């Protein structure tokens, strides 16, 4: 793989998506996925502010002010799209009708707990749809760099940041590797971009098993 780590993470996460999947994409790395997916990938994108069938971003002179995604950025709607209100949108999410949520995180624990909305010591003033998505989506894919800018591991024994939800992660993709949560066990299943087992071990403070395909 090439390019910057964020794009590589997004590209690997995109491989987790299957034709027909209804997918909600968080802000940041997940939002790089639409630019990576093949147009015929058959993935349907849901945005929680009320649209199923998100299309590509519009040209600047074709922006529709009534048409944004959850990042409040202009989008388009594909043929066959549907609009709905916020209660209906979160009914879809909470009710398990969205197949996959791809989101960024600050920490993921060995038990799949996710912390992605608040940093301790700062005021906790925005949660948006994060909690609904990690609880409601059938499959939760976390995309994040393996460590913080300061080099601290983000796959940790226990989250020290405020939780978004317990045991919610199914897959964790970093620039170094892919972890899967299998019946409560954290398992390293794939090395990425030339990373070694040692590279992953150094960047990870959680205990994990290794079952490389």
């Amino acid at each position, binding site marked *: 793989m090439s390019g910057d780590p964020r794009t590589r993470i997004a590209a690997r996460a995109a491989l987790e998506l299957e*034709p*027909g999947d*209804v997918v909600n994409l968080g802000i940041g790395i997940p939002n790089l996925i639409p630019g990576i997916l093949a147009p015929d990938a*058959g993935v*349907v994108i*849901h945005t929680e502010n009320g*649209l*199923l*069938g998100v299309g590509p971003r519009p040209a600047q002179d074709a922006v529709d002010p009534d048409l944004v995604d959850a990042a409040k950025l202009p989008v388009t*709607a*594909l*043929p*066959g*799209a*549907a*609009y*709905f209100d916020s*209660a209906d949108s*979160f*009914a*879809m*999410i*909470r*009710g*398990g*009708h*969205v197949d996959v949520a791809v989101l960024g995180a600050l920490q993921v624990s060995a038990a799949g707990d996710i912390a992605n909305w608040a940093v301790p010591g700062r005021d906790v003033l925005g949660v948006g749809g994060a909690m609904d998505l990690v609880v*409601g989506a059938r499959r939760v894919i976390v995309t994040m760099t393996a460590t913080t800018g300061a080099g601290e591991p983000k796959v940790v024994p226990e989250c020290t940041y405020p939780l978004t939800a317990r045991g919610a992660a199914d897959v964790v993709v970093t620039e170094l590797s892919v972890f899967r949560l299998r019946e409560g066990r954290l398992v390293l299943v794939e090395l990425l971009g030339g990373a070694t087992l040692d590279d992953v071990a150094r960047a990870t403070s959680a205990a994990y098993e290794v079952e490389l395909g």
Partner: protein
Amino acid sequence: MTSVRRVSAEQAISRVRSGDVVMVGGFGLVGAPLTLIDALVETSDARDLTIVSNNVGEAGRGLGLLLRQGRIRKAIASYFTSNPEAVAAVNAGQLDYQLLPQGTFAEAIRAAGAGLGGFYTPVGAGTLLAEGKEERLIDGVPHLLERPLRADVALVHAARADELGNLWYRGTARNFNPLMAAAAGLTIAEAGEIVPVGGIEPEAVATPHLYVDLLVGAKRL
């Protein structure tokens, strides 16, 4: 996007298994999935069904036919009285039933589709229908705790579907159909008309296609 699976009514109904909880849309026969009900009556062996539907058909029509075949073990509804055979089956001990106020019935189906664990409603408190239910005073008013109503399979009728499976309902034929489409493990929709993608205005879609698993052309309009 991926087209919804188009199948025959028989193929669709073959997914109904004995013992299933099956939701059936419609208010009386209006908005009822009559093509799918016919297939369930004529081509399926599934027995021991729990039917969740506002009414249990009318005598010898719609779900009333399934009742005559003795294949309904239990019915969950707001109104059985319109089918005297359903009343007779209850009296003869051949049909188990649960009666809910119509608004509670609708809301419980919505709650299942919306991933809620339950809700409190003031309706029914202090009545026979409160028996066995948890009551709680909220702001001084007695409320009942009601649980979500889920199904294995939902059978719904829409006037129009597009090839993705988006649904549009007409007039008062909407009723319970969109709620049920969201509340089942497998949703089978029949549509009076199936149009190309783009044939339903995005603001007018009442059931977005992610709720629909199988699509069947309705025999009658």
